[in-house]
């Protein structure tokens, strides 16, 4: 047993080396110095402000991952998670807009708006789920289509009904008054509430998948749909549930983007956390708690790459290259390990 763990760590380490090696080749090809770039990407992690910045993007990423782990367990590729984050943000913005002039307590309104975001995310996911279960549309295609619709709707809202006074702009809707922002740590851009919501989300999912009948049934549906049905599990209901839960969690991610980060609706509100979450979920393979460090690492890459255009005149999408390589090589290493390790 111990031997297996050691073996696995060895292969994963090799995967890391390979991913960084290939990424370095890419950097060399465009004439940049890999050593300098990695130093700039990670070196700045030392400061408190930087770590806070990483955590700002870690929270929504973790929530999206948590949701995706549920749909993964049910054997579903919920690509529509991006749209579900976006819709969550729209739902939150809607409630804040409706209630910002009311006499209610601001804290209550924020809570209500986050709840609305979860509901909106769940609704958007339910649409993909309904297409899958009743319309026979594969969730990948349905989700992808709905992502485009959600993006288009955001742009319509930002430039149409919800535009700033004067002319609409890509910078988003009019920011909400300060009392509608989640409180931040002193001097940082990080909200403790975002961290709490994210950690509660991932712990909830971990528990759901490891310790409950619901989680086990969901896994049975994911592993063998027909056997699950014969075992007496209402399969399509469980699929719909998994979509709803994933939608609610990614909706919460969208809600945090509005209430804790941007304080308004912007066209790219989902920031690609959905797609990134798919990668994290693939890597951690049902081990929900492992998503905590993995998501942190991915978020760190994102934040680290922000400087690249300024300092090195490199596009910040380099972090995406690195993340993609990491996923590829770690999955590859796992496959190689299973193939090469003698079974005893």
């Amino acid at each position: 047993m111990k031997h297996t763990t050691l073996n696995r760590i060895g292969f994963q380490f090799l995967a890391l080396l390979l991913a960084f090696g290939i990424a370095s080749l890419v950097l060399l090809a465009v004439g940049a110095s890999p050593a300098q770039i990695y130093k700039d990407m990670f070196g700045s992690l030392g400061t408190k402000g930087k770590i806070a910045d990483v955590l700002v993007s870690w929270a929504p990423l973790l929530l999206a991952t948590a949701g995706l782990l549920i749909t993964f367990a049910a054997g579903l590729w919920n690509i529509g998670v991006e749209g579900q984050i976006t819709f969550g943000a729209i739902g939150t913005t809607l409630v804040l807009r409706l209630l910002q002039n009311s006499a209610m307590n601001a804290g209550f309104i924020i809570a209500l708006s986050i709840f609305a975001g979860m509901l909106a995310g769940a609704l958007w996911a339910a649409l993909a789920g309904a297409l899958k279960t009743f319309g026979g549309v594969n969730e990948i295609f349905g989700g992808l289509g709905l992502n485009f619709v959600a993006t288009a709707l955001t742009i319509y809202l930002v430039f149409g009904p919800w535009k700033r006074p004067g002319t609409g702009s890509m910078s988003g809707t009019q920011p909400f008054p300060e009392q509608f922002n989640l409180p931040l740590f002193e001097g940082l851009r990080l909200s403790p509430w975002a961290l709490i919501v994210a950690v509660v989300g991932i712990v909830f999912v971990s528990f759901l998948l490891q310790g409950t009948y619901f989680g086990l049934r969901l896994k049975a549906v994911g592993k063998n749909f027909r056997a699950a049905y014969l075992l007496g599990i209402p399969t399509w209901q469980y699929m719909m549930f998994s979509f709803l839960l994933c939608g609610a969690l990614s909706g919460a991610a969208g809600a945090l983007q509005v209430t804790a980060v941007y304080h308004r609706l912007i066209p790219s509100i989902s920031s690609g956390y959905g797609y990134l979450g798919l990668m994290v979920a693939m890597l951690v393979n049902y081990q929900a708690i492992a998503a905590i460090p993995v998501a942190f690492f991915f978020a760190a890459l994102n934040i680290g790459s922000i400087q690249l255009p300024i300092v090195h005149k490199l596009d910040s999408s380099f972090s995406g290259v690195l993340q993609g390589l990491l996923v590829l090589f770690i999955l590859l290493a796992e496959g190689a390990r299973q193939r090469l390790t003698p079974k005893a």
Partner: protein
Amino acid sequence: MKVELRGIHKYFGVNHANDDITLTIPSGTIQGILGENGAGKSTLMKILSGFIHADSGEVLLDGKPVVIESPAVAIHDGIGMLHQDPLDFPPMRVIDNFMLGQKGGLFPNRVRAARDLRRLQKEFDFDIDPENYVDSLTVGERQQLEIMRLLYLGARVFILDEPTTGISAAQKDKLFETLKKFREQAITVIFVSHKLEDVEKLCDQVAVLRQGKLVGAMDKPFDQKKLVEMMFGKEVPLGTKQTACQDRTVLNLDHVSIEGMRLKMKDIDFHICEGEVVGLAGMEGSGQDLFLRACAGLIRTVGGVVKVNDRDLTGKSYHTYKKHGVEFLPAARLEQALAPGLTLAEHFILAEKQTGVFINHERGRRLAEERIKTFNIKGAPVSPVESLSGGNQQRTLLSLLRHPLSLVLVEHPTRGLDIESVVYIWGKLKERCKQGAAIVFMSSDLDEILQYSDRVLVFYNGRISHPFDANKTNVQQLGELIGGKGWDE
């Protein structure tokens, strides 16, 4: 071609599936491989045909050591495997299937292939229309097609895995005739089976596997008693039959009509009593599978009334039937009945009644250990179900059945299982009958049907015979009906 296996070892986890197997098969021999399920027959054949790799050991063909990396390499070396379910492409034409695996550029030569197919058909006296689609062929014809395809690819060693299951008696005779012709052409045949009579009729020599080890070999003529002893290590008692039909009806079909993809069945009247066993006989696809699924609510009936324990369940789903004590066990165990990737313990937890929201894993483990013991399953609570052999998967399925039950519907309860498992599984099923459950099962094995049923229904092309008393009918009578004789128009 001479085949030699030397010191083959293969482990699956802690399971030693092949333990130092050494076997020499002279050129032009028909070699029988006997053994109960999980004895390691399939593993050994998969190693020889390149599907899996041995952990150690050597394979020699005509004295030369070979490394069989994949099925493609195997066929290149002259080893062809005929699987129990032919590995062909049902939506494609016969001729296209025949050409599969052929080397030769972007543009296959259909004309030449068609000519060669005709030649082979003539040689072996087969009659398959090259332009027909494979899904319209019988299993026996698909076997014939596979045999010709492998020959065409240059196979000099044929591995046949349980080839006589699911084919008609006439097709079996033809298959044996074909294999005997191979002997003259110095083609070696490895015949894997658990049917003693088939092995006796066909093989020149026999090797017996038990628990991964080669426990014995024998040349013609075979001592059947000794073979059984080698296979099981002990005498196998046969199940006893009981004909105790109480009067309480468990299932009642009243003028039921069913529509399947290819078959329509009309006006079915049927009932079964507590503790009764009804066997469904017929060629594969004659309507037995539709009938079973309709009794379970897995397909919707289009007319008539279905009653379980006097309650009208017409048009309800399987889950409603399940609530009323009906269970369906499909033939494709791993594809339809078990969830690969989940452990035995997890299956037991899923099948049990839910207690609260949270799973008590400790209780699940204890439950699994207890069931593994009672049902004699070779596996541990943490074993993934896909790591079990077919017989153990079937035992697992039986152990998942709840208490109490009214009706158990089983597709091929013992297909591909060894005699010991067959007796065991029927013992467990009969136990259920004593507790008041009724059993309806389909099987292509007439002996099984006659031995274990109280009444027998014969299916032919969507038609159902009147019920026969199993004590008063015989193989001859049922066989004729299965073949389509004696149905009044």
